[in-house]
C-alpha cells in the first residue's frame, strides 16, 4: 500500500509537470492560430480577426467551439478505422515529443527543486526525431483512408517530402550532437554555456541553416506546403476531414511547429541561455556590462520561450513572403543541395572536433 507521501510525490513529480505541459501546449496550439492570422493580416495591410473579443482575442475559443460542434463526417467509401486513427497518430506523436523538451535548468519553486522537464531522456534528440518520423504515418494514412484523389496526392507528397527532408535534418542534428558530445537536450544546452552553436564557425551556421529549411519542410509549411497546396489539391491530405478531426490536424500542425522551433532554440541558440552582447570582448565596459547583467537576470525559461516565439514569427514571416516551390524543385533542394551540404558539414565538424578546434 503506497502511503500518502508517495502519492503526493508522484503527483508532484509526474502529475503537475504533465498537466502544466499539456495546458501550455493546448493554449499555444489555440493561440498560435490567432497569432498567425494576425501576423499575416498585418503583413498584408489587413486587420485580421477583430470581432470576437478585444482584437479577436477570443477568436480561438470560438473556433474551438465550432470545431467541436460541427458534424464529424466520415466519407462513405473511406476506410473508417484508418480514417479515425490518422489524426490521433499525428496528434499523439506531436504531444509525445514535448515530453523530452527541457524548458529550463533546475529551478527552486516553493522551496523545492523542480526539474523543468517531464523526462530527461539520454537520447532526447533521437526520441524526437523518431516521433517526427512516425508522425508521417498520420499524414499518409489520412490521405489514403479518405479515398479521394486529392487527399491521396497530398498524402504522397507529404510522405515523400518528410522522408526526404528528414535526412538533412537528421544530419544537422547529428552535427549538433557531435559538437555537444551528447544526445541529451539538457547537456546540449549546457555545452553552449560558453558559445552558442550557431556561432561556431563554420559548421554552426551551416547546420542551423540546414535545420531551419528542413524544419519548415518537415512541418509542411510554406514555401514547402505542397501537401496541402490549396490551389491544386483543395486541402491536401485533410480535404475530407471535418469537425474535431480537422481541428486535431490543425492543432497538431502548430504543435509540430513548436517542436521544431524549440529544438532549433535548444540546439543552436543556447536554449535558455540569455543573450549577451560580446561578453568576452566588450563585457567589461560599463553600459554594455549593465545591459548584459540585466539580460542575464531574466528567467531562463522566458528566454527559451522568447526564442520559440521568434522562430514561430519567422515561420509566419516566410509564409507571407515566399511563393510555393514546384514539386521537383522541392526534391532537388533536398537531395541535391541540402544532403551533400549536410554530409560535408558533418565531416568538417568531426574533423574540427578531432583536431580540437571546437
Amino acid at each position, binding site marked *: 500500500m503506497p502511503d500518502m507521501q508517495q502519492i503526493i510525490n508522484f503527483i508532484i513529480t509526474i502529475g503537475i509537470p504533465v498537466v502544466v505541459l499539456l495546458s501550455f501546449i493546448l493554449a499555444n496550439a489555440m493561440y498560435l492560430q490567432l497569432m498567425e492570422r494576425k501576423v499575416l493580416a498585418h503583413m498584408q495591410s489587413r486587420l485580421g480577426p477583430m470581432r470576437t473579443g478585444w482584437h479577436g482575442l477570443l477568436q480561438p475559443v470560438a473556433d474551438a467551439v465550432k470545431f467541436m460542434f460541427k458534424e464529424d463526417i466520415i466519407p462513405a467509401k473511406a476506410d473508417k478505422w484508418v480514417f479515425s486513427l490518422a489524426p490521433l497518430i499525428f496528434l499523439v506523436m506531436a504531444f509525445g515529443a514535448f515530453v523530452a523538451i527541457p524548458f529550463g535548468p533546475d529551478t527552486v519553486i516553493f522551496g523545492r527543486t523542480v526539474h523543468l522537464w517531464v523526462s530527461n531522456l539520454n*537520447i532526447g534528440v533521437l526520441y524526437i526525431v523518431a516521433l517526427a518520423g512516425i508522425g508521417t504515418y498520420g499524414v499518409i494514412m489520412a490521405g489514403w483512408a479518405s479515398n479521394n484523389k486529392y487527399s491521396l496526392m497530398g498524402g504522397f507528397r507529404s510522405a515523400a517530402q518528410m522522408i526526404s527532408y528528414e535526412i538533412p535534418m537528421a544530419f544537422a542534428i547529428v552535427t549538433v550532437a557531435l559538437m555537444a558530445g551528447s544526445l541529451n537536450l539538457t547537456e546540449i544546452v549546457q555545452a553552449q554555456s560558453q558559445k552558442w552553436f550557431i556561432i561556431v564557425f563554420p559548421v554552426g551556421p551551416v547546420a542551423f541553416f540546414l535545420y531551419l529549411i528542413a524544419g519548415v519542410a518537415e512541418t509542411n509549411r510554406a514555401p514547402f506546403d505542397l501537401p496541402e497546396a490549396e490551389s491544386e489539391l483543395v486541402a491536401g491530405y485533410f480535404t475530407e476531414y471535418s469537425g474535431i478531426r480537422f481541428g486535431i490536424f490543425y492543432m497538431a500542425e502548430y504543435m509540430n511547429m513548436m517542436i521544431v522551433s524549440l529544438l532549433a532554440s535548444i540546439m543552436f541558440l543556447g536554449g535558455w541561455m540569455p543573450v549577451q552582447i560580446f561578453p568576452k570582448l566588450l563585457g567589461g565596459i560599463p553600459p554594455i556590462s549593465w545591459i548584459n547583467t540585466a539580460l542575464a537576470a531574466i528567467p531562463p525559461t522566458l528566454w527559451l520561450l522568447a526564442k520559440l516565439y521568434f522562430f514561430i514569427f519567422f515561420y509566419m514571416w516566410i509564409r507571407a513572403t515566399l511563393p510555393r516551390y514546384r514539386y521537383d524543385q522541392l526534391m532537388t533542394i533536398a537531395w541535391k543541395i541540402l544532403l551533400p551540404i549536410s554530409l560535408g558539414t558533418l565531416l568538417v565538424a568531426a574533423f574540427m572536433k578531432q583536431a580540437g578546434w571546437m
Partner: protein
Amino acid sequence: MINQLIFAYFAAVIVVSAVLVITRKNPVHSVMFMLLLFFHIAGVFVLLNAEFLAAVQLIVYAGAILILFLFVVILLSVERESQAARANRFWPWLAGFGLIIAGEIALLVLRGSFPGEGKMAVQVAGAGVRDLGVVLYSKFLVPFEISSVILLVGLIGAVMLAKKKTNE
C-alpha cells in the same frame, strides 16, 4: 515481476500483430499492424535499457523503411489485393506443421537452462550511447564496417535492378 508482465504484454502484442500482418486482406492494414509490431519491439528494447536501439528501431524501421512500404502498398488496388488468395489450399497443414515446430522449440527452450543469462557481449552502463559508439569503433570495428558495405551493395542492387532501361 512487473518487468516480466510488461515483457509478456510486449511479446503477446508482437506475436498477435505479426499474425495479423500476414492475414489481413487489406495490405494497408497489414502495414498498420507492422507499425504496431515495430513499436512494441522498440518497447522491448526500452525494457532492456537499450534506449538507443529503441530510438533507432523507430527511426529506421518505422520512420523510413515501413513508410516506403506504405508508399508502394498504397499504389496497389485494395479491391484486387483483397480478393487475391492469401495462401494456397494446403495452408492448414502447413500452419499445423509450423505450430508443431514452434511447440517443439518452446518445449526445448522451457526444458533448457540459460547459464549465460545476465552476461553480455558488451558491458555498457545505462543507455550509454557513448559507450556503444566506442565499442562499435573498437571491438566491433570489422562487423560495423562490413555492414556499411552491405548497405552499399543493397543500394547498388536496388538501383541496378530497378532503374529504367536506357539505350546509352
